[in-house]
């Protein structure tokens, strides 16, 4: 299979094959003394540690006494996307997220798409991610997914040309945007001269756009909404990001214990008494939001919140019930949604997907386990999946039993040959697979900062970029060439 690299047109690396938008950077890189680059890597690590840009790995213990806090490895070589490619991708993202929001609204109102028979009703209505509590609830601007983290990869198409594919739409509580911002800050600190030599589109205004989006999503009860960020607390793996975003937006970072409901409004406990809350940017899953409606044992949310929400007295971002649209069993239908709601041809590609709930697809999947990627439909974070080509025989056989026992719970996709990018590893610079997560904001309009978070699988040959599975990050440049 043809392998794509972002910097070089071919593998192994030959300098004459560098792609045009990387030419300047490569010239610069060749002038750098390896020792200087090593020093810079150490400096970056030291700064990240001092700043405390860490994430928690569940169930792991760090040796240096800082509990379970880990650094996400940061790679010095940026991932560069030429501006014209980004322009198309951006159009595709606006289109896709708009259609997904229309779909969620439809599912919780008239269900036209089900009536039209485009998606089997039982696949939506019997889905664990479908929230009957949301039926008939109107949300401001008709927007459900205010913050969408769409995972995109570049891989060869049937003709062998590089093309962008959407791997998954993260519409619940997508994370990682703080790394996008911190990675850029770090690059500018370590290599200021690079930014004077390149026209890199800035990203630092993301918190501003986010605040604008959240305020635009406030309930009709107020013109000047009070926004808060709701976190599960400092032991959550993404706590740094929650605190970071709250600080950058200048809003309170609250936990469930800080909130209470009175007379069908939501309040937070402050040193000067109760203060009303109008918009919650929640970084807590649906299940934990309200013990009276969802998981009864949850202390992460606030009892009675859903009543306030349904009364239209508070906005929850993202809305409750968005999981119905980013579930992997619904993913195959997104291109049809775009045509159904917008009457447009999809700009971004989906990866061909086999639904194991279908007899033929299951048979095909079982016969080709060693070639396919099999994913749990409700899974996330790189857990509960099989990467056929990288798995041992025993792992494949084990997965086969799981799949036969519960075919509805899985989809499979051909193993995409994700593009790679030159990355610092022990032995020097080598290609490692990457993906891209742009963060799409939907309020009164759909907007985003140029680029997103590039994640890199640091293990040789690995296709799994999740930070919980040993992935790292890179700065992402949208470059005018």
């Amino acid at each position, binding site marked *: 299979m043809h392998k794509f690299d972002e910097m070089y047109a071919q593998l192994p690396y030959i300098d004459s094959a560098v792609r045009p938008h990387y030419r300047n950077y490569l010239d610069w890189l060749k002038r750098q003394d390896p020792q200087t680059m090593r020093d810079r890597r150490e400096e970056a690590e030291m700064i990240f540690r001092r700043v405390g840009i860490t994430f928690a790995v569940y169930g792991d213990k760090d040796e240096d006494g800082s509990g379970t806090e880990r650094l996400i490895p940061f790679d010095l070589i940026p991932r560069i996307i030429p501006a014209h490619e980004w322009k198309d991708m951006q159009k595709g993202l606006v289109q896709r997220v708009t259609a997904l929001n229309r779909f969620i609204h439809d599912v919780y109102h008239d269900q036209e798409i089900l009536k039209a028979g485009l998606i089997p009703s039982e696949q939506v209505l019997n889905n664990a991610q479908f929230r009957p509590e949301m039926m008939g609830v109107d949300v401001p601007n008709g927007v459900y997914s205010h913050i969408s983290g769409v995972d995109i990869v570049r891989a060869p198409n049937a003709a062998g040309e590089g093309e962008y594919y959407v791997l998954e739409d993260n519409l619940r509580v997508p994370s990682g945007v703080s790394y996008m911002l911190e990675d850029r800050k770090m690059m500018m600190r370590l290599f200021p001269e690079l930014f004077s030599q390149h026209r890199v589109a800035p990203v630092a205004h993301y918190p501003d756009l986010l605040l604008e989006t959240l305020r635009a999503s406030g309930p009709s009860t107020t013109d000047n909404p009070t926004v808060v960020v709701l976190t599960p607390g400092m032991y959550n793996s993404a706590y740094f990001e929650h605190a970071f975003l709250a600080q950058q937006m200048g809003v309170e970072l609250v936990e469930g*214990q800080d909130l209470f409901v009175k007379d069908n409004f939501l309040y937070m406990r402050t040193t000067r008494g109760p203060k009303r809350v109008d918009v919650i940017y929640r970084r807590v899953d649906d299940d934990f939001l309200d013990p009276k409606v969802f998981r009864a044992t949850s202390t992460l949310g606030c009892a009675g919140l859903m009543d306030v929400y349904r009364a239209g007295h508070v906005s929850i971002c993202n809305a409750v019930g968005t999981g119905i649209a980013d579930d992997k069993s619904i993913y195959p239908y997104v291109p049809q949604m775009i045509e159904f709601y917008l009457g447009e041809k999809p700009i971004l590609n989906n990866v061909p997907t086999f639904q194991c709930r279908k007899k033929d697809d299951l048979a095909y999947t079982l016969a080709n386990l060693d070639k396919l990627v099999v994913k749990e439909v409700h899974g996330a974070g790189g857990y509960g999946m099989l990467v056929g080509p990288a798995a041992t025989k025993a792992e494949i056989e084990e997965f086969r039993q799981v799949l036969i026992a519960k075919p509805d719970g899985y989809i499979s996709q051909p193993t995409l040959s994700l593009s790679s990018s030159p990355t610092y590893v022990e032995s020097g610079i080598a290609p490692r697979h990457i993906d891209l997560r742009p963060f799409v904001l939907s309020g009164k309009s759909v907007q985003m900062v140029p680029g997103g978070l590039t994640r890199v699988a640091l293990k040789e040959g690995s296709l799994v970029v999740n930070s919980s599975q040993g992935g790292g990050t890179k700065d992402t440049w949208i470059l005018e060439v």
Partner: protein
Amino acid sequence: MLSRTADHLFWMSRYTERAENTARLLDVNYQTSLLPQSAEVAQMGWQGLLSISELLPSYQARHGDITPQRVMEFMVKDENNPSSIISCLRAARENARAVRGSLTTEVWETQNQTWLELNRMLKGGEFERDPGQFFEWVKFRSHLSRGVTVGTMLMDEALHFMRLGTFLERADNTARLVDVKFHAVAHDFFGQNQSQSSGAGQVQVKDQDHDFYHWSAILRSVSGFEIYRKVYRDVIQPERVAELLILRADMPRSLHACLNEVVNNIAMVSDDHAIDSYRRAGKLRAEMEFGRIEEILANGLHAYLTQFLDRVNEIGASISREFLVPN
């Protein structure tokens, strides 16, 4: 601001201050132990240190006999001792992490750096190599933490709750320090009836030279030696040491100075002057302002300080109830 946020800020400062005062106390004992003295006197010094921190039983349960090295290790790096320096700095950093968004980058990075550095130093054996240097480091991290707070934080509630924590803790710690050090010398000197209130830990010391070193050590532990000379321009006398550390409003670690800050900062976070915390703190402050050292000593210093600690504790409880997250 969120009550929980205020609570974390308050405790972050308290733990930082506590770590500093523990380092001060250990340092003065350590320095004293370098002077020629009887084994018994040295032993009493370490035991007194444990008893003012109310840690004697838990120390004895774990280590038995009192040896300088074991006491220092217990008070510096024993993670099972909630008052050890490592436990205090961990708690300070955990509280800071819980509200890092309410702190300036500099304040947070100072806390985080202190924690990372502490672990590196303890692992590298730097404490054992030079305890004096280590205690100095703890003190300076606390200075830095306070300085970066005052120098970078917006002067709003967040800052006031942090300051409140600092000075309430310091009032408590200074009172304990004075108590144990005065306790350790001729107990009939102050007050007539307090000898039975002591446990073990009292030694009759008549030696003039030793007295000088004892009192100057107390002063040094609160950075007060030069201040004493400047204020009194005289030889060191115990009554004056007591007066300086209790009643002088211009001595930054005295009980009076701490109470001034406590009262002022409560006033900054509430317009309601009828609240319990303000009333209690104001009353105690007034007693410091109009009190005389002779009166205090006539009734017995130990009794006075015991009552003072109870009242500081009550002020803390009122602040929790009225502003923070009551447990």
